[in-house]
């Protein structure tokens, strides 16, 4: 007997007939009828009219029939709430059935019926089932709590089910534990702030025990839950990691990936010099590779995740390049993902192999794949300098194939190679020019035109070539038009004599005959530039172009860290945070990695400052999602009073409004423009948006932007002239070391606030956003008092001046030299580290004037060993002028005496940490043109003295 016949009843009076059959006395007939009803339901027919008749069949001891009726109920109860009540009694009765399978069935089904009246009746049976003697019933009841919570959260809380659920975590049966964990995790997700999943070492231990015993699915629930735990110290992290690693050998890929997630997260907290850390890294590679022999769909999920892992910890898979080689029969989605990872893993060591593979792929059938392979060759050239030559010749070979889309793609990437290695491979231009006619895609045409314009002086017939494009000017896409305009202007500037006519032609086409404002504006700007100041035009149009970055398509670090916390889930497949695709409250919480805090950190960070960005561990800035909060908890310092509590939300809001909005507005345009106008985007037509919005934030250095700045500026007095000495800005972070970001800066003390004045210059090709700053611990506890206020994206070649107010309540650690400050600056591209030294006068406080008596007493009190003598020469000041000058920097004169034609000044300084530095200064008054000063400094902390002396000298000499 088969059931397929139920699918084929399509007679008209069907419902009627079914009704009769359902009410039949014969059990068999009834069952048949219910089956037919379910079949109709499956194919989408509306059989809700049969509700009372079907429910009538519920009272049966035939379990199969009962299940079918329940299935029907789950589907239609919502549309017939009043009638659904009829079923309640049966449910309640079934919950008392001696057969545990039936008890569980009843409680399972009841939870799926989303009718308020029924849920009320559900509470009592559920309570009993949660404490049922049979584990099968308990595990079903645990899930039922989550169901009920989804319908009526308040009810669940009022009835105390959450506590019962928590108790089930200690249940003796592993499956009950797993389901309770799953239910609690889900409920906790909708209450982000509740401490529902109160994970502590005891519960963690229970979970880890259950992990060894429960089903594969249960292991996934538990591992996913564990990933949310925050171990107290590295010893606990390690012990959890040790107990999770065996899961890497599980046959179920999801168990493996969830275990990888836990390990990736907790590894962050382990000290890197630990032996175990290295062992763990080594253990991660084989299971990840094994995932690639799973079914293709799982391979896809694994590859998307490996893509993240490779970006976060490239060392794990750096030797495994071969396994990512594409197989001929791989589904296209697997092929494309593998290609991505191959590029990420490409290095000098394996580049030959990679290139040979890529060349092979470029002859395949799938157009997308081939294009991506060609593009990958270009990316290898840019990434691995030693291979550039080989890549270029490979690309040339591919161009020779004359396959249209291969040629076009190759030309696009060759343009990038020219950008990266200017004046190196122009010999290939001739070959490129041969293919001019076959280019029909705008991107390829634009790239080719750029190349012609850029190397116009070396291409004999550049004018002819460009002229040929000009014929169909109005049919071209904007991208090509803009590029053509720029290229011809470049050509004109390089060969003015022969091309005057051409440039006039293109300018008139762009300005008079075009409707496109971008094109028109750019045309006008060129026109004006050329007519007023050809030299300036040359400087602008033929300016040296900024570097292009090596790594492309990198995921923004904040997002990457969030995604690492979501390994194995949809977020990691989409490479988007859950909030981007999940509705409601569930996805909103941002997860983040937490770096290890404590001694290990400071021990390793000094060399970080020196070794530069490439080796810097990302751990210094744990997460940038909610920057301020992290800055504070990195060192586990309590939130300081100087930080207004509104800041986190304010900052986020402001960032989103300006950063996000403008970013998307400008992103595309400045991208194309940046390259187009030879690296001078500030004059681009499309940028009209940006300048309007920027001044507010750019402002002058002293004031931090507009209204937002004021809020942070605490007691204010921003522009108040205090007369303190401010050193000129020096370059702290050269663009070479920071992927195009140059930072120069200085320190100033204004109105009692220490400020770090920074100039951020973008010398890269792409827009920079999401700036944030953080300091390492330092001698005087300097720490940013607010976030780094860079509210607009920083376009290429743009400079932004920012003033960062500093507080002195950060964590303290003695530095060498004393006034050394290690800084980490992060943007959307990477995290960069540098160190700088601040003049110690920054931490001289305003109330540093000591009472005379106290001064005398203190002076005597400080042992003579602590006295340091210094000389300052070539000072052209008398004592009063010196005293005034010093006062401007909070060095206060307490008294003045004149002894034997020498002025004696007694001075006091108070540091932010309460240390007093006293000084006696002897000034020869005889000859105002040649003055020598003698300074004796006394301080309880003598190591400060030389720095204080430096300040005296600096202040007096400037």
């Amino acid at each position, binding site marked *: 007997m*088969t059931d397929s016949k139920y699918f084929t009843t399509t007679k008209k009076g069907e419902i009627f007939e079914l009704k009769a059959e359902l009410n039949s006395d014969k059990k068999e007939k009834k069952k048949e009828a219910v089956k037919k009803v379910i079949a109709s339901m499956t194919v989408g027919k509306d059989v809700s009219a049969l509700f009372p008749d079907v429910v009538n069949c519920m009272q049966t001891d035939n379990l199969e029939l009962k*299940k079918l009726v329940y299935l029907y109920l789950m589907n239609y109860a919502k549309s017939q709430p009043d009638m659904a009540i009829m079923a309640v009694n049966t449910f309640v009765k079934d919950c008392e059935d001696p057969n545990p399978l039936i008890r569980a069935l009843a409680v399972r089904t009841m939870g799926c019926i989303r009718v308020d009246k029924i849920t009320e009746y559900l509470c009592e049976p559920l309570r009993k089932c949660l404490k049922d003697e049979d*584990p*099968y019933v308990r595990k079903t009841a645990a*899930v039922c709590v989550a169901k009920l919570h989804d319908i009526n959260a308040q009810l669940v809380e009022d009835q105390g089910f959450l506590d019962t659920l928590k108790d089930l975590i200690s249940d003796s049966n592993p499956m009950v534990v797993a*389901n309770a964990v799953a239910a609690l995790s*889900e409920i906790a997700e909708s209450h982000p702030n509740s401490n529902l999943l109160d994970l502590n070492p005891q519960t963690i231990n229970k979970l880890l025990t259950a992990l060894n015993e429960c089903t594969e*699915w249960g292991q996934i629930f538990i591992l996913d839950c564990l990933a949310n735990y925050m171990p107290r110290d590295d010893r606990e992290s390690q012990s959890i990691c040790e107990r999770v690693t065996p899961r890497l050998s599980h046959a179920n890929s*999801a168990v493996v990936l969830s275990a990888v997630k836990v390990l990736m997260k907790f590894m962050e907290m382990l000290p890197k010099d630990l032996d175990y850390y290295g062992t763990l890294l080594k253990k991660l590679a084989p299971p990840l590779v094994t995932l690639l022999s799973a079914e293709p769909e799982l391979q896809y999920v694994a590859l998307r995740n490996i893509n993240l892992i490779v970006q976060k910890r490239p060392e794990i898979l750096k030797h495994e390049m071969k396994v990512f080689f594409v197989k001929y029969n791989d589904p296209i989605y697997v092929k494309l993902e593998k290609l991505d990872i191959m590029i990420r893993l490409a290095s000098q060591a394996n580049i030959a192999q990679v290139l040979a593979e890529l060349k092979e792929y470029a002859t395949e*059938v799938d157009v997308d794949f081939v294009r991506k392979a060609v593009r990958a060759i270009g990316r290898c050239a840019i990434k691995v300098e030693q291979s550039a030559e080989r890549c270029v010749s490979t690309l040339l070979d591919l161009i020779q194939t004359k396959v249209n889309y291969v040629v076009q793609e190759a030309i696009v990437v060759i343009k990038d190679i020219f950008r990266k290695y200017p004046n190196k491979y122009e010999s290939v231009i001739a070959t490129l020019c041969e293919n001019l006619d076959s280019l029909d895609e705008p991107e390829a045409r634009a790239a080719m035109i750029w190349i012609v314009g850029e190397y116009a002086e070396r291409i004999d017939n550049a004018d002819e070539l460009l002229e040929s494009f000009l014929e169909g000017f109005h049919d071209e896409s904007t991208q090509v038009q803009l590029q053509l305009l720029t290229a011809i202007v470049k050509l004109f500037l390089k060969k003015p004599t022969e091309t005057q006519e051409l440039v006039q032609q293109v300018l008139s086409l762009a300005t008079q005959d075009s409707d496109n404002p971008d094109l028109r504006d750019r045309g006008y700007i060129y026109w004006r530039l050329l007519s007023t100041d050809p030299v300036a035009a040359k400087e602008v149009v033929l300016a040296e172009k900024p570097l292009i970055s090596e790594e492309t398509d990198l995921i923004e670090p904040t997002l990457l860290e969030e995604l690492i916390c979501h390994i194995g889930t949809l977020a990691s497949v989409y490479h988007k945070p859950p909030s981007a695709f999940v509705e409601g409250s569930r996805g909103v919480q941002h997860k983040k990695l937490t770096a290890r805090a404590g001694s290990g950190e400071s021990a390793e960070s000094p060399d970080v400052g020196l070794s530069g960005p490439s080796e810097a561990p990302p751990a210094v800035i744990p997460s940038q999602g909610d920057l301020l909060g992290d800055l504070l908890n990195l060192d586990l310092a309590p939130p300081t009073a100087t930080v207004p509590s509104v800041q986190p939300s304010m900052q986020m809001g402001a960032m989103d409004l300006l950063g996000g909005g403008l970013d998307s507005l400008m992103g595309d345009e400045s991208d194309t423009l940046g390259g187009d106008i030879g690296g001078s985007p500030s004059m681009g037509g499309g940028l009209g948006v940006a300048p309007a919005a920027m001044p507010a934030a750019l402002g002058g250095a002293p004031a931090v932007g507009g209204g937002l700045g004021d809020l942070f500026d605490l007691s204010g007095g921003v522009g108040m002239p205090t007369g303190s000495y401010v050193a000129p800005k020096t370059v702290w972070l050269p663009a070479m070391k920071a992927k195009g970001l140059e930072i120069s800066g200085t320190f100033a003390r204004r109105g009692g606030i220490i400020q770090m004045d920074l100039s951020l210059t973008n010398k890269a090709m792409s827009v920079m956003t999401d700036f944030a700053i953080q300091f390492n611990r330092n001698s005087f506890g300097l720490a940013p008092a607010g976030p780094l206020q860079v509210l607009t994206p920083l376009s290429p070649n743009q400079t932004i001046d920012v003033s960062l107010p500093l507080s002195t309540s950060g964590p303290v650690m003695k530095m060498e030299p004393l006034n050394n400050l290690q800084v980490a600056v992060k943007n959307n591209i990477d995290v960069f580290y540098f160190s700088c030294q601040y003049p110690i006068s920054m931490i001289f406080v305003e109330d540093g004037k000591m009472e005379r008596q106290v001064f005398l007493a203190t002076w005597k009190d400080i042992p003579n060993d602590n006295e340091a003598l210094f000389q300052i020469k070539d000072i052209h000041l008398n004592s009063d002028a010196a005293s005034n000058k010093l006062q401007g920097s909070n060095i206060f004169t307490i008294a003045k005496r004149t002894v034997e034609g020498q002025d004696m000044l007694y001075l006091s300084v108070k540091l932010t940490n309460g240390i007093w530095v006293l000084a006696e200064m002897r000034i020869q008054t005889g000859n105002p043109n040649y003055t020598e000063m003698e300074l004796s400094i006394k301080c309880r902390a003598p190591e400060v003295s030389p720095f204080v002396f430096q300040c005296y000298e600096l202040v007096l000499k400037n």
Partner: protein
Amino acid sequence: MIGGLFIYNHKGEVLISRVYRDDIGRNAVDAFRVNVIHARQQVRSPVTNIARTSFFHIKRSNIWLAAVTKQNVNAAMVFEFLYKMCDVMTAYFGKISEENIKNNFVLIYELLDEILDFGYPQNSETGALKTFITQQGIKGQHQTKEEQSQITSQVTGQIGWRREGIKYRRNELFLDVLESVNLLMSPQGQVLSAHVSGRVVMKSYLSGMPECKFGMNDKIVIDKQGKGGTTDDPGKSGKQSIAIDDCTFHQCVRLSKFDSERSISFIPPDGEYELMRYRTTKDIILPFRVIPLVREVGRTKLEVKVVIKSNFKPSLLAQKIEVRIPTPLNTSGVQVICMKGKAKYKASENAIVWKIKRMAGMKESQISAEIELLPTNDKKKWARPPISMNFEVPFAPSGLKVRYLKVFESKLNYSDHDVIKWVRYIGRSGIYETRC
């Protein structure tokens, strides 16, 4: 979690539809059909997001299985679950086909109710499921209380894959070491990549709750024992042990024990199951070597010569050898000469298929073909797909050897010696390709 599960036939008609979560509307069923099954273009991803709803799908012959969700679910778990569901269905009614699904739709609904609760996968071991969900209607009415609680404790228990009280007159077990050897070779004969992915499949017919211990020539274990002072056979330096890159185990294996001692101990499920999977990349015996020679004679002719060499003991026989030589799309005619086996040009597959029934080790065979081409003005060059090969050999190309499988059952009166054990090695070709 999983919000709903749909099964469609190749036309996109719904065969099974089960919704677990309230956030999945009825239109989800249609959304998938319209956007994926009926999509014009080939599907580019197994995960599709349509209007903030995510669909995961797999295909079994021409049946589509789709899981749908609106949350950030564990994607790997969803796919694992879909595969598992296929396994369960296959175990119940054989091949997954439209007919079988329609015939068993009540059973499928019942299974779906059991193995997925509110979108959370529950125990999905067929062994356990079959104790209380059967095709002949559900047991349950006639069970005793003991039986019932035995079922529930098995379903939820630590050893969810085996029930108590199994009895066999003859305690017997079969071990199959099934390996698939994968190769990608350059035209010059350089190995670009090679690996073996192997499986140890066990069929156990053992009484009671036997504790088993499985041993193989794992390098790490052997080296460890070697240090202990036992010098087994110092004279033989041959391939005594193999380096396993990675392995995964059936859930019956105690992973923590493997992690700490590298010993494989377990209580096996009853009947057939996959004990472990492993992967090796070092010192693989490549059973065949393919030497291609392709020569283009003018624009309308290709000359192909392919030599295959078998590379294993002459006493062993390889079987089901098949070499597939791709031909260009514009092939008009093919003439083949082969010394051994049969070769045929299959126009529909764009390939010459050369089949040899049996071939002993250390032999060599050759095929040569002349391919006539139609003149085309297609600019696109022929992509020259690799020559692929299929075969079966009676040994494990990785070199894996089963050293022992010990069975202990303390409660019943049979010992390890009483168990009849069978071990078999089969090496098959995975993706075994040589570029030409």
